[in-house]
């Protein structure tokens, strides 16, 4: 037992408990300070994560692993958590929400995700997944008196519990076939005894459970409703961090435990990826609510990332990681701009964005940069990430020619997606505004938005460090 390997998670949980304690002592008018305490406190887990960087250690009987892949994801979750907390301060202050619990739950969800990125055992995978999910169910339903928020929480919980039942069934079958729950032992058992029908069934059930978490197409129905109903900062958190955590698990489980069954799951992810990106993009075209639009767009982006699993090479995996980072920064930026808009105007309809460029020039510019980055237009991060991922999948197609079709489908989809992203930009810049009243933004939102947009531009213009980090991380799975 090497407890120091858990220092980032432990410090996050301590921070959450401290926040709940401070919440009791603070008078009502000083409650927004809790957000800043949470934000400053994030320095500790970030420091400990950096400290563990470069190690490659396994502990807790093989259940916990700290390697570069885990570190990459942990830093990604911490960036997401920091931006979400910063953008929550103004949003939460206006709502009848207990603030201490809110920030504490965000931190707990983050620590659950960080555990998800570094578990290597089916039991601890299940526990960390549920730890994250249950906190997110609460956060989705956090505005208790709001009809939409509690409805979002109920839908998320019922479908989430259903999918975790499927996941457990798959895990139990896998345990029965291989006699172990440690991913590496499962791989060696499958390699020795061969793949039988029960193993394939277990693999499919596990894919169903994870497919729900990352919102791939047959299991995506919850995403638009939950994204629309949940408090907007939580929607942002769900759409980036929870999705990235799901991908961390999918990568680790399929690229280690089920590597001997590669021929079974490569075609499966091929089909999932193609239908996910196509359906996400086609349905997004018709959306009138910007949160639902971004929900379908995030489904489509999950489809792009899944291409990396359909290829399953070191290059494609690092492509997935770069894509996830670029997507995290971009999508968070877009959601922070939406928070800024909705706290002032109280609406999420795309029609209300008409003429926004004259009412809030900086906010419009930031939202436009993020939307164009999601569409994959240079020089933003989304462009570099798309090129890098598509090129890696294209390279892998040399051994698996079917992947050429996947790249073509992805390129067509990117073209479709430009339409609905540009529609919002067009509404902001070219449509006439109903009022000319200018919209201000609070300090916290302004800092969060600038940080996200700066990240999008920096990764877009100088992506080398991110790519190197992703390549090192991908080598963990594909040496």
């Amino acid at each position, binding site marked *: 037992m090497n407890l120091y390997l858990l220092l980032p998670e432990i410090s996050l949980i301590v921070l959450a408990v401290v926040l709940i304690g401070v919440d009791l002592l603070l008078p009502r008018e000083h409650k927004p300070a809790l957000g800043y305490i949470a934000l400053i406190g994030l320095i500790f887990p970030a420091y400990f994560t950096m400290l563990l960087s470069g190690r490659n250690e396994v502990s807790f009987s093989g259940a916990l692993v700290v390697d570069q892949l885990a570190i990459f994801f942990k830093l990604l979750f911490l960036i997401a958590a920091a931006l979400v907390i910063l953008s929550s301060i103004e949003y939460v202050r206006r709502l009848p929400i207990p603030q201490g619990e809110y920030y504490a739950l965000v931190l707990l969800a983050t620590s659950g995700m960080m555990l998800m990125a570094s578990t290597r055992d*089916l*039991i601890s995978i*299940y*526990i960390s997944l*549920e730890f994250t999910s*249950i906190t997110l*169910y*609460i956060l989705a*339903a956090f505005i*208790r*008196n709001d*009809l*939409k928020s*509690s*409805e*979002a*929480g*109920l*839908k998320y*919980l*019922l479908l989430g*519990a*259903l999918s*975790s*039942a499927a996941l*457990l*069934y798959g*895990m*139990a*079958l896998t*345990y*029965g076939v291989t*006699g*172990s*729950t440690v991913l590496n032992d499962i791989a060696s058992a499958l390699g020795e005894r061969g793949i039988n029908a029960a193993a394939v069934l277990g693999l499919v059930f596990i894919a169903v459970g994870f497919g729900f978490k990352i919102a791939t197409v047959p299991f995506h*129905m919850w995403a*638009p*409703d939950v994204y*629309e*109903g949940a408090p907007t900062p939580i929607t942002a958190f769900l759409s980036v961090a929870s999705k990235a955590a799901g991908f961390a698990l999918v990568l680790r489980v399929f690229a280690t435990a089920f590597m001997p069954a590669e021929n079974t799951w490569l075609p499966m992810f091929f089909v999932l990826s193609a239908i996910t990106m196509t359906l996400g993009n086609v349905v997004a075209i018709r959306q009138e609510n910007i949160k639902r639009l971004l929900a379908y767009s995030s489904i489509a982006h999950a489809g792009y990332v899944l291409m990396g699993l359909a290829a399953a090479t070191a290059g494609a995996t690092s492509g997935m990681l770069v894509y996830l980072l670029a997507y995290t920064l971009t999508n968070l930026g877009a959601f922070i701009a939406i928070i800024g808009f909705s706290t002032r105007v109280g609406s999420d309809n795309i029609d209300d964005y008409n003429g926004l460029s004259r009412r809030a020039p900086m906010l419009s510019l930031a939202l436009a940069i993020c939307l164009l980055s999601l569409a994959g237009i240079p020089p933003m991060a989304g462009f570099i990430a798309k090129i890098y991922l598509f090129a890696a999948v294209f390279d892998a197609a040399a051994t698996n020619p079917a992947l050429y079709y996947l790249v073509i489908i992805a390129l067509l989809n990117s073209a479709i997606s430009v339409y609905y992203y540009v529609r919002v930009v067009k509404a902001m810049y070219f449509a006439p505004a109903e009022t000319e009243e200018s919209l201000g933004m609070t300090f916290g939102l302004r800092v969060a938005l600038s940080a996200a947009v700066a990240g999008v531009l920096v990764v877009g213009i100088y992506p080398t460090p991110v790519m190197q980090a992703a390549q090192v991380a991908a080598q963990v799975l594909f040496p």
Partner: protein
Amino acid sequence: MLSLNAFLLLSAVLFCIGLFGALSKRNAVAILMSIELMFNAVNIMLVAFARFLAPASTVGQALPPVSTVGQVFTIFIITVAAAEAAVGLAIVLAIYRTRRTISVDEVNLMKW
């Protein structure tokens, strides 16, 4: 003694009953109960595997042979399912307070 297949069949049947209930019931609490049934189907399977996949070293000792991993997994599933049910019932209660109904057909402000 019953064979492993009997337990696996029981587990599969229970899982399907739970799935059918979860998809066909309209009352949110009934759906939660159906999902609970699915979890218990998995528990039966895990415990059966733990008993029948016992490592050779434990056979013939004083205690009956088991593989502890499966049993530990079961205990964790029971615990997490309880936590999940607690949160689920709390959300159902919040919905009942605002809408006076817990039928999922009427909780439909947003399209599925």
